[in-house]
């Protein structure tokens, strides 16, 4: 369980990711982070749009799509928040997505993107 004070990138999870990468972890990390930065921005955008449009289903899908990669890259807090949104969307009747709070996801999402960008620039 994460909290508001959790770092955007969990150090232990990041360490495990490096371990998974093995010898040329650096190359793998670069590839992954680049991919994430592309997808991540797009997904955060989609989340904002779907919420404004009141489309609970689409909002849920976007939150789901953001969750797993975030977890893989150690952004555990963000992953948890995405899961909460996903669950909330599951219980929401059509057209009422506007009530689901997405600010936390959006804010955390930006933090994660910045943190990852930093690691990419200064490995």
């Amino acid at each position, binding site marked *: 369980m994460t909290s508001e004070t959790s770092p955007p990138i969990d150090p232990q999870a990041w360490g495990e990711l490096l371990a998974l*990468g093995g010898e040329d972890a650096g190359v*793998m990390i670069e590839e*992954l982070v680049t991919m994430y930065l592309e*997808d991540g921005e797009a997904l955060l955008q989609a989340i904002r749009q779907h919420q404004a449009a009141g489309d609970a289903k689409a909002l849920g899908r976007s939150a789901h799509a953001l969750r797993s990669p975030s977890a893989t890259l150690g952004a555990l807090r963000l992953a948890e928040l995405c899961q909460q949104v996903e669950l909330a969307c599951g219980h929401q009747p059509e057209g009422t997505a506007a009530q689901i709070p997405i600010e936390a996801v959006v804010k955390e999402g930006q933090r994660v993107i910045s943190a990852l960008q930093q690691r990419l620039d200064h490995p």
Partner: protein
Amino acid sequence: MSGPMRLLLIDDDRILQLVLQRVLKREGAEVLLASDGRTGLAMAREHAPHLVLCDWNMEGMDGLEVCRHFKADPQLSAIFFILLTSRSEVKDQVMGLDAGADDFLTKPVEAAELTARVRAGMRLYESNQSLRELSLDLERQKRQLEEEMSRAADYVSSILPSSLKGPISIESLFLPSQRLGGDCYDFYWLDQDHFVVYMLDVSGHGLAAALPSISIHNLLRSNAIDSSIRCHPAQVLENLNAFFQMGQQNEQYFTIWYGVYRPTTRNLTYASAGHPPCFLLPGQAETGESIQQLKTNGMPIGLFEEVTYLEQVQSILPGSLIYLYTDGIYECLPSDNQRVTWDLDQFKNHLLATSLPEPPALPALLAEIRQLSGSPTFNDDVSLMQIRFSHLQPDQD
């Protein structure tokens, strides 16, 4: 295992795909990627992976459904299926197992655990393959054996005589059991005044019983036993016993009933060795009144070295009816129906009851016996011979 391990990864998270692919490739595996269940199934059918790693939580078809599809398809069901899940509660695992999953991995995935489970999965897959191949092999051998038995049964049928018409009319029936027994019989004119008829039953089942029965049949047709001896049943049995001592014949023995009929005297000389009694329904005035049992005391052939066989003589009235058979016809499997008993006595009574006005045709008789015995199949060979001596007086032949 021939070639590298082929692993199919089904996950809609392309970042995780990348990570896992890397780790697994380092282990020497060939990794295939699919982003959804349907694609995964199609790829599996085309590339036949050994293992599948499938995310539980996916859009469209979720992991459980993919798993069910895999396990329902005979082409894919043997593939080792690992569910990737962020759920670790017991009830989730139960759901996964019920859907047919072979193992679980919780996300986020740890490298060491991933490789260990994949390796373990591979080991299980390979041992399943060995078992499968063994089972196919056994099936093949079983079929082969059944075919061989069938061919052997056909051969035995082919050397048995068919019917005979004339002053002596004979109908015979040979029903080999599935396990093939050692039944055999024959009848023929040795010369103008000597008609030989016999029936035998070699102990055991399968080719071990059938082969000796065939060789005895050939022996009795050949000149290995002189024709002068072949007119004398007791001597024939003694000769056979000398030939077939059990110790030399794989612990086998056989029962036999052997008779020689002379039309000029109307005498039937016979000797038997452990075989069930021949049934005689006397003709003319005594028809329908009684059955005589024709049997001599004698050990089955091949059991003991020094055995003396005795013969008896029976006068045969015109119109008489004789039955020769093997024990398969009255030794049926016990039926579920407690009220039904079927034994030698019942068989005898039935033959007597059906002899008037005309003796039954053998197929009909067999059908009646199946019904009376309460068992539609016989668990041993069944042989049945019906000999009718014509009603004509000797001087009318």
